[in-house]
């Protein structure tokens, strides 16, 4: 298969597994869209995010390999434990891997990193 064509079955399995592991880790929903974003990326990603079953508890990762854009959308609830600077760290990690040509590895790393940030235990008491 020529380079840049699509994912292999094993790559799809790896991404699926990373998503399942992330959801198990933090109890939030993860979704990864890989493909062209028609129109502006952010509104398109937000619409994809809104189409998920539980958008408020979901994190959507959009990767547009042709335009070389990665976009992460976090739901309202997910954002409470996964703030934007933490998302930016995961995006940077993915960006580095994508620039090196490791699309699958970048997606896996980014999803896991997002889940690790999102599993931060909520403080039930404080000063």
């Amino acid at each position, binding site marked *: 298969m*020529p380079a840049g064509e699509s994912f292999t079955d094993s790559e799809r399995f790896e991404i699926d597994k990373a998503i399942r592991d992330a959801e198990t880790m933090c109890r939030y929903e993860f979704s990864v869209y890989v493909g062209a974003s028609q*129109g502006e990326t952010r509104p398109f990603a937000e619409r994809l995010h809104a189409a998920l079953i539980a958008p*408020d508890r979901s994190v959507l990762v959009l990767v547009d390999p042709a335009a070389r854009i990665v976009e992460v959308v976090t739901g309202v609830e997910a954002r409470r434990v996964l703030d934007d600077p933490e998302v930016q760290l995961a995006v940077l990690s993915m960006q580095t891997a994508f620039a090196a040509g490791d699309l699958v590895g970048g997606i896996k790393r980014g999803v896991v990193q997002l889940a690790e940030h999102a599993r931060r235990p909520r403080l039930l008491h404080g000063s």
Partner: protein
Amino acid sequence: MNHAPHSPHSPARRVARLLALTPAIAGVLLAGPAWASAPDSWESQPKVNLLYAVLLLGGIAAGLFVLISLLVVLPGMVHHESYQPALSWRGGPEWFGGPRGGVEGLDGAAGLEKLNDPAGLEGRDDVSRQAIPSAEDARDHADRGGASARW
């Protein structure tokens, strides 16, 4: 009284130089195979064919070279590289962990275009409006967060 300086080409100096080199030259010339004969208890080895020896010794080295090269190259050949930054992505959209049926499953055919243009769904009965977020729905989630980057 003046002493004549020793010329570097004087006979004494030449002899001294030769004598200084003699042990080194003699060591090289005399160094050779041991003259001691093999003990009688040793089995007499048959003569080894020179070609056979070269093939055996060189062949093992060459074989190891080929084997190691294959071990290095083969994983890269077998492992599928589906994406290279220098090449454009030609695969279709894939949605992992998304709605059942992916983008196309949102409303049947051409879901991607409709996802970008939900206003165009007005008056359509064959479209599942529940699955497709409208622009208003998207605005309702204005508190969403996230980040983006380019590479």
